[in-house]
């Protein structure tokens, strides 16, 4: 074993009260530690006599040999275990209190509480899982919603692998054919070949293209929708953020320009994650500090997936700011006609909005005082991004930016093959870009070694080491 670190333990199942809970222990001394706490029905501490890959009935006892819980203990000796170290799993009754007691007993025997992801880190360092799987596990550890969890599981299970592998095999076949024909023209004929290749190439291009498009959705589903709230000062931006976040986050006052810097917040609406950026109000200002905030707001709007534009419906007129107009026309925007509760003072209506920004724009009347329109807002957001379906699909997405980049590279390489075919280049030129596509696809599924990935995983897994 390379990593003769200490032995670690953790509760492997959820901390909620459940029927069964599992505590996992991994390391060279895993058996010793558990042996001290475990007695078989005969009352003996004899765990070390049991073979690997056995499940054993017995009891967990404390220092005074008092029975704490009735358990099943599984033994998986190195290297045939998840971490490639000796692993013991205690199946206990899932109560939070019981599990915490057992963990405390383990720590007393010399175990250390595992850090998040540490079992996987050991599995990775011991070569148990390959790089893409390690990457998916990292995603799983950092998963923030059901979708990304499910997707990570699907990647682990090899759905992504199968999809990409099948394209890759076809590419390989064509490369091999071209190579064979170059070396053995007597037995492999290239007449009419570019037409045949062109057909296949187009089908790969369209498959990869749809994976790239899906990956946008996948990335949004996993990392959340980058949402920017803009509007004139005091239109109610910070109040909206607080409504969505359910707590006082931004400083809300009646004084214009209270929010000087951008404030960021991650909010979970049902199954959608929003990364919300609250900006300073957009207006011409003399105040230098606030000016920086306004510029930041415009800048954040440029990179946003979604913009929530809040208008104070009691204002006398709609902003004619060109900067705002540009942002509105070029992005996914929902207009919130706010302060709808002050009905006697309303001067800006939906029609006014349609007049300025066109009739396709989505408008909701809201009030931050009585929560009017908040449910509508949620529905519109989920419609916009997920066609009303915010539950995880059984489809696998490339949700990782590195993988997406590799997909794009593969796509571009195949486009180059298409160009070479159109330019009537001789077949030996096709191989260069086919080879590139092949290796980029390989990087996604770990069939091609991407050294940068090793570095990246190390930096994420082993910070400070």
């Amino acid at each position, binding site marked *: 074993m390379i990593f003769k670190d200490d032995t670690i333990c953790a509760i492997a199942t959820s901390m909620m009260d459940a029927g069964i809970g599992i505590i996992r222990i991994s390391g060279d001394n895993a058996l010793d530690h558990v042996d001290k706490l475990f007695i078989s029905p005969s009352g003996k501490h004899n765990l070390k006599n049991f073979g690997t890959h056995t499940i054993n009935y017995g009891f967990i006892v404390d220092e005074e040999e008092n029975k704490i819980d009735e358990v099943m203990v599984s033994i998986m000796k190195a290297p045939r275990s998840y971490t490639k170290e000796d692993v013991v799993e205690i199946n206990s009754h899932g109560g939070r209190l019981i599990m915490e007691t057992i963990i405390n007993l383990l720590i007393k025997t010399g175990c250390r509480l595992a850090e998040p992801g540490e079992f996987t880190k050991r599995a990775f*360092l011991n*070569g148990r899982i390959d790089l893409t799987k390690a990457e998916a596990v990292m995603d799983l550890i950092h998963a923030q919603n059901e979708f990304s969890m499910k997707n990570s599981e699907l990647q682990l299970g090899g759905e992504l692998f199968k999809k990409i592998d099948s394209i890759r095999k076809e590419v390989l076949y064509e490369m091999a054919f071209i190579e064979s024909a170059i070396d053995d023209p007597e037995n492999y004929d290239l007449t009419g070949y570019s037409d045949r290749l062109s057909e296949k190439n187009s089908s790969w291009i369209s498959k990869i293209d749809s994976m790239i498009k899906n990956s946008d959705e996948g990335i949004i589903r996993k990392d959340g929708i980058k949402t920017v709230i803009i509007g004139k000062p005091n239109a109610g931006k910070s109040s909206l953020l607080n409504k969505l976040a359910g707590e006082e986050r931004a400083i809300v006052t009646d004084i214009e320009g209270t929010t000087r810097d951008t404030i960021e917040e991650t909010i979970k609406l049902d199954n959608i994650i929003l990364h919300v950026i609250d900006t300073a109000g957009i207006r011409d200002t003399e105040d230098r500090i606030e000016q920086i905030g306004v510029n930041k707001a415009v800048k954040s709007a440029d990179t946003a997936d979604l913009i929530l534009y809040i208008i104070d419906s009691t204002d006398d007129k709609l902003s004619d700011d060109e900067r705002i107009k540009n942002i509105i026309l070029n992005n996914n925007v929902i207009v919130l006609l706010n302060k709808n509760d002050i009905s006697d003072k309303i001067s800006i209506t939906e029609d006014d909005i349609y007049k300025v920004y066109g009739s396709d724009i989505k408008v909701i009347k809201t009030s931050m005082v009585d929560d009017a329109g908040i449910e509508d807002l949620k529905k519109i957001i989920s419609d916009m991004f997920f066609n009303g379906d915010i539950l995880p699909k059984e489809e696998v997405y490339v949700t990782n930016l590195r993988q997406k980049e590799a997909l794009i590279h593969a796509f571009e390489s195949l486009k180059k093959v298409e160009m070479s075919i159109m330019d009537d280049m001789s077949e030996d030129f096709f191989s*260069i870009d086919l*080879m590139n596509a092949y290796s980029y696809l390989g990087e996604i599924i770990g069939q091609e070694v991407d*050294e940068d990935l090793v570095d990246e995983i190390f930096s994420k897994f082993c910070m400070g080491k």
Partner: protein
Amino acid sequence: MVVDNFDVIVIGGGHAGCEAGLAASRLGLKTIVFTLSVDNIAFMPCNPHIGGSSKGHLVREIDALGGEMGKNIDKTYLQSKMLNKSKGPAIHSLRAQADKAEYSKSMKMIMQAQENLTIKQAEISEILFEELDKNKDSDLLTEGYERRVKGVKTVTGLIYEGKTIILCTGTYLKSRCLCGESISYTGPNGLQPSNLLSDSLIKGGVELRRFKTGTPARMDGNSIDYSKMEIQTGDTPVIPFSFDTDPDSIQKEQHYCYLTYTNEKTHEIIRNNIDRSPIYAGVIEGIGPRYCPSIEDKVIKFPDKIRHQVFVEPEGTHTNEMYIDGMSSSMPEDVQVQMYRSVPGLENCVIVKNAYAIEYDCLCSGQLYPTLEIKKIRGLFSAGQFNGSSGYEEAAAQGLYASINACMQILGKPYLSIDRSEGYIGVLVDDLVTKDNLEPYRMMTSRAEYRLLLRQDNADIRLRKKGYEVGLISEEKYQALLLKEKQIEDETERLKSIKLGANATVQKFMDEHNSPRLKTAVSLAELICRPELDYESLKDLDPDRPELSKEVIEQVEINIKYEGYIERQQRQVDKFRKTEKKIIPSEINYDDVISLRLEARQNLKKFKPKNVGQASRISGVNPADISVLLVYLENYNRQNKE
């Protein structure tokens, strides 16, 4: 009795041995070449041609490094052709029919005239080894050597001492020739085999195995009816192999080759007698080359093919023998007669020399360093068919490469290294060193990943500098190369910088050349990229162009026309170099890398790669193993840093 001592002892006077002997003596080292027959130096026992797809590249690279093969074939060719001219420049390849007797005679004369070089006809029966001393040779022992060479002993008992030995034994070690049921214990063409050396090598710790290869019959030219065959002519003018040959000096009237085909009748004769083929009857133990198959292999492997090509090629000006390319065989001679006579044009053929298969001892994979030195034995190098390759060009390339490295070892200078992105020689050596080749290794275009960069036309630019650094290329030739490079660079720049406006003269020119009219100003380089235009045709629009050689113009044109492809290939090379730079510490214990699969672990232990790139090319090592290794190395390096 110790007769003499040498710096370099070469065993064998074939294509590997000739290059090895010449290179070492030209580097000023005292060299001897032992051959079983001085009359058969640089003998071509099989096909009568040099070059061909990818092998032509090797010959050019040999020439760029300072070898002799290209110059010798330029002097002695009968017909020459640039193959694949309709394809991209990467797979253009020169191939020349040789006058076998002249080729051999000419090479022998070059060697006899070479200073520092002795030629001796003798069979070497023994290599003399010396075990390394724990105290005196501790450095070599740490490097993994166990013994060193001391010299050789001839069958008549004479001892020649030597600092290094280069084994170029070709197909002569314990060779036997098979023709149906008839077996003769000789080397090729009835020559004497070398029966004693194998045992001495085995004693020295070298592992050997059996390979086989074959050759077709030679026909009496007077018995062939050429009117039933297609005539194959050479190029006019002929392009020389050597960068130093003046093209004008070698133009001459060329011989014809002929093309005919086998037919169903031929295949039926073969199928009816397949049980009498020693390969199919299980008599031959050696494994033959897949890519140079016998006619019986082709008939069995491609049952749907109704015919196979047969080229009829001259063997020389002083013989009427014709070589029947495409129909090598180990069938009994009575079957051969029927088989050949079923081919159009060969109905009445008279066989001068029958076809046969030959079996011989050669080196098992995994025993070579990238210098072509045999692991564990300091000073013992090997090249050519002994290393498991096939072909004259492959042999010559290794002979040159191994010899340069033997010399560098003696001179204490850095070894010559050519990687896969620098030359076909690099691909050849790397494949021989890292792969578990199960059959004779033949060079092929598809083995080179970066072939757009490894063209036959730029072999001098790729490798001449290396030849200069080791000392085989003269200062004068090196300066000429630098000038050529400068001219290519300047002219490429000039063509990119000169812009043509859309004026009447230019538009008229475009119309005349069926090229679209200009919409905006474009550079001359952009025009060269148009498929219908080239450097030559643009000369009227480019009155100030400098006077340049054809070779320079060719490079400029390729660089411009294929710029995008060349750049993309270059990026692939950059990526490749990155893993070549990831060094695997020599002290690494693969048993500690727990998740390697068994096969990968065994092969990594056996081949002992120097870097991750090499490791990734070893047979039986897959990308998952490389990931495991990378993770291990990263962790290993981090822990050792602390």
